[in-house]
């Protein structure tokens, strides 16, 4: 297994201008922070990014938007992001908004060798415009195609030298789906261990789907909506 790379810079080294890349994460949770930083530093342009969200102005994919590296975003929700809005309104940025479950399923379809899937989501809405509709058992479904992406970049909690990945809590989200879907899949992990140290029963993404892996550094794990309750509310 020669999957280990030194760091994010090496991992993203061959990503070229115009590439289509998937980026794992939901909001700012479970995003590949190190690779995003490396992509910003590398200055690669004209990217098509498939990611559920687009980060915030000064973190996550928002950092790539600031540098105008993205030509097109394929997302379900782009949230609060002033630079995103500016680029969209000025026509610099193309945006394809698709339902979240459709986004997830189109990733899975790619990883499972299914060229297309049928989903109820979006029937009767503008999402259905131009799409093939088909009825099964009295319900109408849209035909949606598997994604075709050059690179998938994901963030895991633990990984081993064979590329096996384990995600933590809701930082799992789109990560295992995108990991399956990239022609080349890059995983950054909080803890990289030798093969044999992860329980094979607990692997979320088998190593066959992962081409490059490294242990990330300095995770900020920024919280988008810090919500807490007060101690007195405890039962």
């Amino acid at each position: 297994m020669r999957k280990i790379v030194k760091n994010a810079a090496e991992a993203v080294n061959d990503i070229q201008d115009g590439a289509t890349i998937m980026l794992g994460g939901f909001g700012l949770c479970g995003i590949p922070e190190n690779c995003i930083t490396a992509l910003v530093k590398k200055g690669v342009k004209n990217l098509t990014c498939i990611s559920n969200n687009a980060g915030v102005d000064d973190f996550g994919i928002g950092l790539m938007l600031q540098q105008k590296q993205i030509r097109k975003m394929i997302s379900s929700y782009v949230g609060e992001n002033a630079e995103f809005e500016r680029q969209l309104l000025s026509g610099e940025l193309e945006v394809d908004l698709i339902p979240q479950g459709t986004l997830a399923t189109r990733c899975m379809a790619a990883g499972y060798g299914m060229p297309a899937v049928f989903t109820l989501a979006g029937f009767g809405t503008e999402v259905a415009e131009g799409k093939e509709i088909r009825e099964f058992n009295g319900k109408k479904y849209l035909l949606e195609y598997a994604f075709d992406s050059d690179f998938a970049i994901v963030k895991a909690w633990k990984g081993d030298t064979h590329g096996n990945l384990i995600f933590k809590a809701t930082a799992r989200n789109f990560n295992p789906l995108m990991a399956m879907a990239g022609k080349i899949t890059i995983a950054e992990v909080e803890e990289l261990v030798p093969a044999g140290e992860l329980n094979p029963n607990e692997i979320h993404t088998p190593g066959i789907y992962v081409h490059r892996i490294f242990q990330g550094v300095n995770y900020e794990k920024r919280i988008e909506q810090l919500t807490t309750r007060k101690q007195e509310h405890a039962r």
Partner: protein
Amino acid sequence: MLDKFGIAKRIARELQDGYYVNLGIGIPTLVANYIPEGIEVVLQSENGLLGMGPFPFADEVDADLINAGKQTITTVKGSAFFDSAMSFGMIRAGKVDLTVLGAMEVADNGDIANWKVPGKMVKGMGGAMDLVAAAKNIIVAMQHCDKAGNSKLLPKCTLPITGLGCVKKVVSDLGVFNITEHGFHLIERAPGISTDFITEKTAGRLIINGEVPEMIFD
């Protein structure tokens, strides 16, 4: 007239023991605070969790544990994490018993619009289109009228549609309405609200059969 807490409290009465429930952002989230005694429900968060608990204490906060509204949360006993494909898979397969959503407009045939306002920046539909298209039981929590006093319970949605014919029930600040083939069927009035007032404020087809009880909170 109900405030947002009242709406949430009334919707909580629709919960049944053993239900799996997805609560949208806003008023729906408040429903979790009013789960009746003796009833156990499991909250689904579509970013990949069954068994969502309350917000964490300050020293429990975990950046890797958020809900679909991106708020930090906790889990309860018996919870499970999964990826987004499985999450929407279980929604599409009808495994979630009840979905509670907010809406900008609901039509009297059950159409819903809650994701886009023409001329305003569009943030995206997130999981809303999947939820409305596939959930087997959808209750909408909403204000009956917009700020200008115009009804949001309409004969036809004017905003871009999120899903067709999917809403089963609406709980507004004015009352509770089942959606039937003949329109909004008023089944309960909010405290102090008359059927005349509801009739005035409802643009869509409204069905009122005999005396409509006022809802009672204990």
